[in-house]
């Protein structure tokens, strides 16, 4: 560890400046206005904790949005990351198809969400969609399931629009795998380790850092998820697929209520920090090594 104050300051300065310029002032606005009444175009008045009390005692949709967000964080940081890691481990064996599969797996991340939303609507359409068509063909009966709007399947269907697409996790893990030295594998092989043992006992422990990072990114992405929900269910039926970003968006642009939206924003940030803290602890990311 070096102590080198001059360089530390200089290296950090650009990031800190940009953060202060773009995000810090927004944070002030966010926190400050959460204690006010502020509708678009109207005067701002101070109301203390009114918004917080309202959200936690009166607003059932908000409570449901927290619940859904937390479930999605849970699923995303476990199943989604696991899928990505497994693909990375399989592809690290450097088969002829490795590079092609890696590219293919990443493609869903490339298509912009405006098109993805429309695509999911068409593929899952109850009348003519690909999925129902396939099921009908296999069973021989006309199969009609309204995936996004049947209260029983809505949550799962929305989840599946992002849960399996873990291409990002795969490339992040593979990038870090490339730093493992060949000799380590050779040595293990000589010791008679199977490739499964190598994966489990050598590679995975070395990947702890990047997997932690992937979990952080996957979990926090659920705190920003908006466009696909907006295009498929708008948070419905009722509030079954409502998450916090979607509700904040509605509160701003339909209710014109900045103060309530910003209160939700502050709660989301606090929640996010807690989630981050837990993940960092689990993966030992705050430890110095």
């Amino acid at each position, binding site marked *: 560890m070096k102590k080198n*104050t001059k360089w530390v300051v200089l290296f950090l300065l650009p990031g800190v400046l940009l953060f202060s310029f773009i995000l810090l002032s927004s944070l002030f606005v966010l926190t400050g206005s959460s204690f006010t009444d502020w509708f678009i175009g109207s005067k701002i008045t101070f109301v203390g904790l009114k918004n917080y009390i309202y959200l936690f005692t009166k607003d059932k949709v908000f409570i449901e949005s927290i619940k859904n967000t937390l479930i999605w964080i849970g699923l995303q940081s476990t199943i989604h990351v696991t899928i990505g890691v497994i693909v990375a481990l399989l592809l690290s064996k450097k088969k002829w198809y490795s590079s092609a599969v890696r590219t293919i797996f990443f493609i869903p991340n490339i298509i*912009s969400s405006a098109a993805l939303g429309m695509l999911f609507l068409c593929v899952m359409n109850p009348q003519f969609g690909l999925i129902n*068509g396939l099921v009908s063909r296999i069973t021989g009966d006309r199969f009609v399931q309204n995936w996004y709007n049947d209260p029983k399947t809505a949550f799962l269907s929305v989840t599946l629009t992002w849960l399996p697409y873990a291409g990002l996790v795969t490339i992040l893990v593979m*990038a870090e795998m490339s*730093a493992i030295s060949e000799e380590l594998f050779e040595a293990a092989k000589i010791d008679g380790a199977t490739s499964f043992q190598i994966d489990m006992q050598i590679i995975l422990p070395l990947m702890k850092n990047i997997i932690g990072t992937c979990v952080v*990114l996957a979990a926090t992405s659920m*705190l920003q998820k908006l466009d696909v929900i907006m295009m498929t269910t708008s948070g419905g039926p009722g509030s079954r697929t409502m998450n916090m970003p979607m509700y904040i*968006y509605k509160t701003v642009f339909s209710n014109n209520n900045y103060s309530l939206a910003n209160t939700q924003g502050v709660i989301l940030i606090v929640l996010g920090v807690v989630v981050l803290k837990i993940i960092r602890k689990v993966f030992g990311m705050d430890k110095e090594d």
Partner: protein
Amino acid sequence: MKTVRKVLAFIFLSFICIISLVPFIWVMFSSFKTNSEILSGTVGLPTGFHISNYVTAFKLAPIGTFYINSILVALFATVLNLIICSLAAYVVVRCQFKAKGIITLMFSLGLIIPGAALIQPLYTILSGAHLYNTLSGLVLVYTALGMPTTFYVMVSYIKTIPYSLEEAAYIDGSGFVRTFLQVVLPITRPAFATAGVIQFLFAWNEFQFALTLTGETGKRTLPIALYYFKSAFASDYGAMFAATVVVAIPSIITFIILQKQVVAGLAAGSVKG
């Protein structure tokens, strides 16, 4: 046992490929279909390869102008973001200083500030700084919003590099900056490539801020073009998917070029272990 695992792996990878390819192929095919073919769920190849959707796409939306702007914005936002974050990540991993916790938190916050709540404050800030309706304004916003991801990727990667390499450089009399540039940067190439891909895609596909923070057609970026085909009572989905293909191609090329770098570490001589 080994065969079972192999078969399972094969099935798993095939499944992954199918669910990833379906969207892409579907978009490709749709870009050659008529509106009613798309909305009637016609599966399979379009009836003859009409390129009329592509013609419509270029005619109705200012794709050319948006293209140039998008390239500029995405490139600058990526380069600036990588420079800023690699510097910060390096000192956070390698140096000892008091504010480390707060710096880490600062870089994490961007991950959890909800976008919808940022629109209005960002508009006010950029207007005040005379950066509303400028490409540089967009570059700064994207650079800042992308900082957390890049920072995390960089920190994670730099942590895996053994300190002995830098130590050797210091013993040879190399200074702080020179060590960073000549020893650390070359081996962090995979991290640069992955973080770069993520940041590029973010800047390339972002819609809401692009629309809010610019005010004239000459200053706008590609994602906005897709919405020229989505009007309340007259959407042209064929043209929208054609535009989607046009928008996605540079991203795919960027990814293919950069992904070679992602695994380049192996060839460049491994360091971990």
